[in-house]
């Protein structure tokens, strides 16, 4: 039996509750909601990547690495750590952010986001912030796991944190755009599976592009993942395939382009509003 809502207070007379320029409660609500979803699937979110990373170390680090000399003066087991973290960061940022916004679209709860007094920028901050948080935590867990297998010394720890942060934000933003664009589960998986993962494997996650024949080396320089993995590896070992300035410039360039794209999507309501 429903009560006749008499226990609730009377409403005021048109006193808008939101004069603030920033809806912090709204941003926090979405952020918390997204983190809570990850906590509900903790095994899938954290344990699976840890097991996968451990397997990479067994296969690449121990089995293959034992037969390989060092790369650029770095033991092969340690050499693949930045690549492994980047691989996880790319895929997890993409999948977390794309799923985060695609799922409400898919089940229809997006109506609540669209009807709330929350700006597009705040929506992006909340979803991208949550996705980036999850992938950064995962990256750190993988780093901790890796340190159990190989001795690690990080030459530029602050740069490493900054790179981790920027990469997570950039790919989460990319994922968010994918989630807005996707109209079905297949489309949602298309870019991560067919573009990002192959490019990451070909981007020097498990090798230095200096090991490639000259033609392939030049060809690899058209792969943006090379710059990101190389930049992240520089943070660890102070050595890279391409200059760190180029890596940072590419990261900032991609981030800027994605911000422009998201601005256009929200201005036009593309695949969000009719």
């Amino acid at each position, binding site marked *: 039996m429903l009560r*006749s809502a008499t226990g609730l207070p009377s409403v005021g007379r048109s006193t808008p509750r939101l004069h603030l320029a920033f809806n912090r409660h709204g941003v926090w609500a979405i952020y918390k909601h997204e983190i809570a979803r990850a906590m509900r699937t903790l095994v899938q979110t954290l344990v699976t990547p840890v097991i996968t990373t451990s397997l990479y170390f067994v296969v690449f680090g121990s089995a293959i690495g034992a037969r390989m000399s060092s790369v650029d003066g770095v033991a092969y087991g340690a050499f693949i750590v930045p690549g492994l973290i980047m691989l996880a960061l790319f895929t997890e940022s993409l999948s977390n952010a794309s799923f985060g916004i695609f799922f409400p679209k898919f089940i229809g709860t997006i109506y609540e986001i669209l009807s709330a007094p929350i700006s597009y920028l705040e929506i992006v901050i909340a979803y991208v912030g949550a996705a980036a948080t999850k992938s950064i935590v995962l990256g750190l867990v993988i780093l901790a796991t890796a340190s159990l297998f190989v001795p690690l010394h990080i030459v530029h720890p602050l740069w490493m944190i900054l790179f981790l942060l920027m990469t997570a934000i950039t790919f989460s933003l990319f994922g968010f755009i994918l989630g807005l664009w996707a109209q079905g589960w297949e489309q949602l998986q298309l870019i991560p599976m067919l573009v990002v993962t192959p490019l990451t494997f070909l981007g020097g996650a498990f090798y230095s592009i200096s090991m490639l024949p000259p033609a392939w080396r030049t060809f690899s320089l058209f792969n943006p993942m090379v710059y990101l993995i190389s930049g992240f590896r520089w943070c660890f070992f102070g050595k890279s395939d391409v200059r760190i300035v180029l890596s940072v410039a590419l990261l900032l360039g991609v981030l800027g382009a994605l911000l422009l794209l998201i601005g256009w999507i929200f201005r036009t309501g593309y695949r969000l509003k009719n």
Partner: protein
Amino acid sequence: MPPVIAIEQLTKSYASGVAALQPIDLTIERGEIFALLGPNGAGKTTLINIICGIVTPSSGRVLAAGHDILRDYRAARSLIGLVPQELTTEAYETVWATVAFSRGLFGRAPNPEYVERLLHDLSLTDKRNSRIMTLSGGMKRRVMIAKALSHEPEILFLDEPTAGVDVELRRDMWNLVRGLRERGVTIILTTHYIEEAEEMADRVGVIHKGNLILVEEKSALMRKFGQKELMLHLEKPLERLPPELAAWRLELRSKGYELGLALDTASGLRIPALLKQLSELSIEIKDLQTHQSSLEDIFVQLVRERA
């Protein structure tokens, strides 16, 4: 006092070329229950979705408590709550989490006491930690209402609030809506159940093919378009009306077994005279009944006229 919702020359055309709303002008007064009626695809949900910010209008202006829904969207939306037609919630969330989420989303600071009271008033207290997937359809509908009320809105849109709800819960919902109105909440509802509008609404709007074809006080509408009729069921059929009854404007139906008389104030007062005359003509009456047009009759008549 200015209207709580003011709609001026609002139109919506989709990219496909479908004109969902023709220019619409409508004002809704503070504290009233306004029922928006219309057949499927008439434009009811489009209109609600524009006001709530889910659909972008093609032209026109909407003010919610004086705030433009596009330019001053934060102020406007913070005053509005929406219960959508579909039961769309995240299955794995708990009732408490989803209601608290909605409150935060609408910019309100956490208030466990308020949420607790809200759940109590919606008979959801014992379900507060249940996952939504475990709830019945009726319970889910209550959760949707709790979410819409979580930020203490002044204007509440109910899009088909009792679709798929059993009779008892429907009556309970009506009581809840009346209770909300007593608190000063303005309620705009769309419904397929004309009985619902008849039961609750102060004013009724009829929308058809994107046009608002009528807005009227419910009681005035019933007076204006409503008809009352007296039906007399005869013991033996009549082949034709006796000439003595010509002055009564009676209608012979059901193969002569039924006499119908449209009642107005004058004819209503003369019913005893008619019965006396029928008796004098040895026309025996088996049964008699009166029929008052319902809002549904009026709605069907209006829509048919515009078809």
